[in-house]
């Protein structure tokens, strides 16, 4: 059989198809890798960090925040750390955030991934409004809940007496002692992690979680009836409509039918 010459057009189409094919293949592998890499939710970011989704697209991974931190709190995720590569994070049990009043890590951020405005009140930087995370107490391993006196976290807290308070309760077992248990208040806690750092138990009984993970949400359909202000939330509440078979008849009918065998 005679060999046919391959036309330039055919060559061009083939080359384009090959390019597209390899690109799509590469694209899938690449996306899958990234999807895995950003799956970790439990990272604690520096103060002023945007919401995780916005943070990931805005952080340029330059490490200027890491260099600015005087306590070596911040680290950049390295290959093998199983965290989004190159992004800053901290582990409070190792080195917590010491809440510098001038927050040196935030203004150096060139991209605004650490948002200066979110930690500014009345034109001044204010680390107390940062929300890096929220402290969560595990009442089962916290020795204060056992009745052993410990207030390490309460004493370590830089927002003393506001972010963590001590609650007193009678210890019925001994009859003459008190439980002095730590309670975290989410409106004041910044998630700096000094409490986790100070916790005396083998594995900390108080630990910082990102707010998104630590906090639940009641929704607008549960209202504190005894609180007038709380009723305002009703405006946002969406009605939930459900239909069941029983709704199709009138209420009286539904009660009168199908119950004969009860009598």
């Amino acid at each position, binding site marked *: 059989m005679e060999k046919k010459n391959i036309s330039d057009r055919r060559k061009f189409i083939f080359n384009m198809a090959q390019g597209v094919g390899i690109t799509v293949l590469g*694209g899938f592998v690449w996306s899958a890798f990234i999807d895995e890499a950003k799956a970790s939710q439990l990272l604690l970011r520096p103060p002023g960090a945007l919401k995780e989704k916005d943070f990931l697209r*805005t952080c340029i991974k*330059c490490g200027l925040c890491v260099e600015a931190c005087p306590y070596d709190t911040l680290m950049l995720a390295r290959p093998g750390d199983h965290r989004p590569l190159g992004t800053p994070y901290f582990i409070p049990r190792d080195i917590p955030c010491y809440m510098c009043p001038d927050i040196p890590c935030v203004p150096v951020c060139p*991209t*605004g991934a650490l948002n200066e405005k979110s930690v500014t009140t009345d034109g001044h930087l204010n680390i107390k409004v940062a929300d890096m995370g929220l402290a969560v107490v595990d009442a089962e391993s916290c020795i204060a809940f056992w009745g052993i006196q410990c207030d390490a976290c309460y004493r370590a807290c830089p927002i003393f007496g506001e972010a963590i308070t001590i609650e007193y309760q009678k210890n019925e077992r001994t009859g003459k002692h008190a439980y002095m248990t730590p309670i975290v208040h989410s409106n004041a806690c910044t998630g700096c992690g000094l409490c986790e750092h100070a916790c005396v138990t083998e594995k900390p009984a108080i630990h910082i979680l990102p707010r998104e993970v630590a906090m639940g949400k009641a929704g607008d359909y549960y209202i504190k009836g005894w609180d007038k202000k709380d009723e305002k939330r009703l405006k946002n509440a969406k009605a939930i409509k459900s239909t069941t078979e029983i709704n199709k008849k009138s209420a009286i009918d539904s009660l009168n039918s199908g119950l004969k065998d009860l009598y």
Partner: protein
Amino acid sequence: MVKLWENYRYLILRRLTQVGLLVLYFGGNVWGWTVLRGNLSSSKIFNTIPVSDPYAALQMLAAGATLATDLLIGVAVTTIFYLLIGGRAFCSWVCPINMVTDAANYTRRVLDIKRVQGNKQPASRNIRYWALGLSLVISAVMGLTAFEFISPISMVHRGIVFGLGFGWAAIVVIFLFDLLILKNGWCGHVCPLGGFYSLLGKFSLIRVHHNEANCTLCMKCKVVCPEQQVLGMVGKESLPVLSGECTNCARCIEVCDDDALGFSIKSLVKK
């Protein structure tokens, strides 16, 4: 000694620049020097002049991030700098991966791997432009900076400045890929950052110029050149290298014994 300088002057200067920048960045992190702080993604010179990677900013834009003023100034500084001196001067004078791929290429020549593999380059040098486009598409779809998540350049550079972790694996992979699989594989074919700077380099002022009258067709320049295709005019015409893919590494200039190659400035050439 004079001959050593004659034949290696740009190579020595390049290595000094590359290592010098790494030392400055490392000192910025570890000893608090203020000359250069940050890393190749974004840094500050003397705590005042911002410089940022324009390709990273492009991915951020594709991902839908709002670009801060500091970042935009940094991008402008970098873009103007590389527009003047040649986009891919970044690749041969700054990028730490260049030392890895140069080492692979040198090993290739020593082991004479060409004799085993033959001359044919099985992959297109346009892959980098596909990778460039793909990185922007993935950035837009997934809402993050796609290449920055896997970039061995940032990985290694960050690694040297802030601690390497498993980053050494990236170095080994690129070295072996360039040595055993594809000649100039990473820098010459795949790297989308190189692709980006190739596009930027189309307009640069500093060029390598070829003087045909002096050329004796020894082809030493083509042996050392990591982007041989840009030297297409050697021995044929007196022309400057106009392709943005030239990295301005100047190896061709110093290996040429006939004084047929040298730096020139684009606008003067046109006259």
